[in-house]
C-alpha cells in the first residue's frame, strides 16, 4: 500500500515541481495576491480610510487562508485531471492500485502543493508588511486543516464529475471556488450579506472559519461553537465527497468510461 501511494506521490511531484515554469505556476499567484492586498491595505491605512488598525492583518490573513482552500482544491483536481489529460487512466486502473490509495495520494499531493505554494507568499507578507500569520497561534493549524479539507471536498466532487460526465465539467475545476467565494465571507462579516445569502452561507464551513479568524484578530476571542460547527460540517462534506468520487469511479466502470478516456 505505502509503495503504491509513494509511486503516485513521486509521479505527482514530478508533474507539479518537475520544471521551473510548473513550480512557478504553483507559487506566483498567492504571492501576487499578498502583494496586491498588502499594498492596497497600506494605502487605506495611510489615507485614514479605515478605522481598523488591524485591517492589514485581517486582510492578509484572509488572503492566505482563502488561498489554502483554493490551492487545496486545485492541487487535488489538477493532479487527478492530469491522468485524464495524459490518457493514462486505463493503465492506472489496471494496476493493483486500490481506490482508497488514489484518494490518499491525491490528499497528500494537494497538501504538499498548498504548503509549497503558500510559503513564499507568507515570507513576502512578513518581509513587505511585517505581517505575522502565526498571530493566529494554534488556531492557524486548525484553520489550515479545515480549509484544505474543504478544498479536498470540492476537488473530489469536481474530479468525480469530470471522470463520469466528461470534459465539460473541467470548467468547474476553476469556477466552482469563485461561486463559493461570496458565501464564504472571506473579507467581510456574515451580517453584511443579504438574509437569503446568509442562510446559504451557513450551510458551508468556510464562513465559520473566516468569522472565527476575525473574532481572534479583532476581539482576541474564540467562539468554540463555531469551531465545533466547522469540524462537523467539514467531516460530513469530506466523507460525502470521497464516497461520491468512489461512486463516480464505479459508475465509470459500469459505463465503460475508463477505457480510452483522454484529451
Amino acid at each position, binding site marked *: 500500500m505505502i509503495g503504491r501511494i509513494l509511486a503516485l506521490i*513521486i*509521479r505527482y511531484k514530478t*508533474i507539479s515541481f518537475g520544471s521551473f515554469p510548473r513550480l512557478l505556476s504553483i507559487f506566483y499567484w498567492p504571492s501576487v495576491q499578498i502583494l496586491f492586498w498588502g499594498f492596497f491595505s497600506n494605502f487605506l491605512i495611510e489615507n485614514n480610510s479605515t478605522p481598523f488598525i488591524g485591517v492589514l492583518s485581517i486582510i492578509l490573513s484572509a488572503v492566505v487562508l482563502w488561498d489554502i482552500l483554493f490551492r487545496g482544491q486545485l492541487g487535488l483536481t489538477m493532479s487527478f485531471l492530469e491522468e485524464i489529460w495524459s490518457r*493514462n487512466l486505463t493503465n492506472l*486502473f489496471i494496476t493493483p492500485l486500490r481506490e482508497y490509495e488514489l484518494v490518499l495520494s491525491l490528499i497528500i499531493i494537494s497538501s504538499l502543493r498548498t504548503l509549497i505554494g503558500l510559503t513564499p507568499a507568507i515570507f513576502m507578507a512578513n518581509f513587505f508588511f511585517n505581517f505575522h500569520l502565526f498571530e493566529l497561534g494554534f488556531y492557524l493549524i486548525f484553520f489550515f486543516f479545515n480549509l484544505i479539507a474543504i478544498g479536498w471536498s470540492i476537488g473530489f466532487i469536481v474530479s468525480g464529475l469530470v471522470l463520469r460526465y466528461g470534459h465539460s465539467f473541467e470548467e468547474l475545476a476553476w469556477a466552482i471556488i469563485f461561486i463559493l467565494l461570496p458565501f464564504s465571507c472571506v473579507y467581510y462579516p456574515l451580517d453584511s450579506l443579504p438574509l437569503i445569502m446568509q442562510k446559504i452561507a451557513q450551510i458551508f464551513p468556510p464562513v465559520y472559519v473566516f468569522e472565527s479568524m476575525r473574532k481572534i484578530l479583532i476581539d482576541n476571542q474564540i467562539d468554540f461553537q463555531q469551531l465545533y460547527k466547522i469540524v462537523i460540517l467539514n467531516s460530513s462534506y469530506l466523507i460525502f465527497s470521497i464516497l461520491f468520487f468512489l461512486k463516480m469511479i464505479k459508475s465509470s466502470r459500469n459505463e465503460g468510461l475508463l477505457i*480510452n478516456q483522454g484529451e
Partner: protein
Amino acid sequence: MKNCVVKVSNLVKIFDKRKIIKNISFDVSENSVVGILGKNGAGKTTLLGMLMGLILPSSGKIEILGKDLKKKKNEILKKINFQSPYVDLPKKMTVEQNLYFYSRLYGIKNFKDIVNDLVDQLKMKDLIKKNYGSLSAGQKTKVNLCKALINNPKLLLLDEPTASLDPETSIFIREFLLKFQKKNNSSILITSHNLDEIQSICSKIILLKFGTVVSDGNLNEILKTKNYSTLQDFFLGQG
C-alpha cells in the same frame, strides 16, 4: 490437460439497453497465444475491458488464473498487464520515470535492474531519458510494451500491439513477444486487424460478431474444417 488462465462464463454487457456482449463463454489455456478477432463494434475492446476489471459485466463470471475477478481483482491485477497504442503513459514524464512509476505500482522490488534489462531487450536505450510526450507513435508502442512486461505478467492482453510500427519493428516485436511467452510460460490474448499477424503467432482464435462468439478453437483446425487456406479468407467468409 492444461489449466485455464481465463475462463469466461455467460458473460453479458449491456450499455444503454443495448447488448454489446451477448452471453459469451470461452476459455484460454495456459502457455497459449489466442487471437480475438472481429470487425469494428464486435465487442473486442469491451471484452478486453471486462477481463481487466475496467468495465463491470452486467452478468456472467470471469475467472483469471483460477480466481474470481469480481472477488480477487487486486490479486489478479498484479499478474496481468495490458498494452494498446490507444492508451498513453504520462506525457510529462520521461520514459524512465514512467517505467519506474509503474514498477512501483506493481510492487516490483529490484525494478531498476528489470527496467534496464527490458530496455536492453527491446532496444530502446536511446529513448529512456526522453519525455514520453515527445516520442513518435512507434516509439510509444515500444515503451507501452515495455510497461506491459514490467511485472512479468502471466496473462498479457494486447490491443493491436504492432499498429503504427514499421514492418521491421513489427517482426521484431512479434518475435520478442513469442520468446517472452515461451520463457515465462505466459498466455497472450491479442486483438488485431492484422490477420497475417494473428495467423503467424496465434494457436487459437475467438471470432466475435455482434457480441457473440461465432468461432472458437484451434486456428489450423478451424481453417481445415471450414476449408480455408488463410485466416483472411476465413474472416471475410464470415460476412
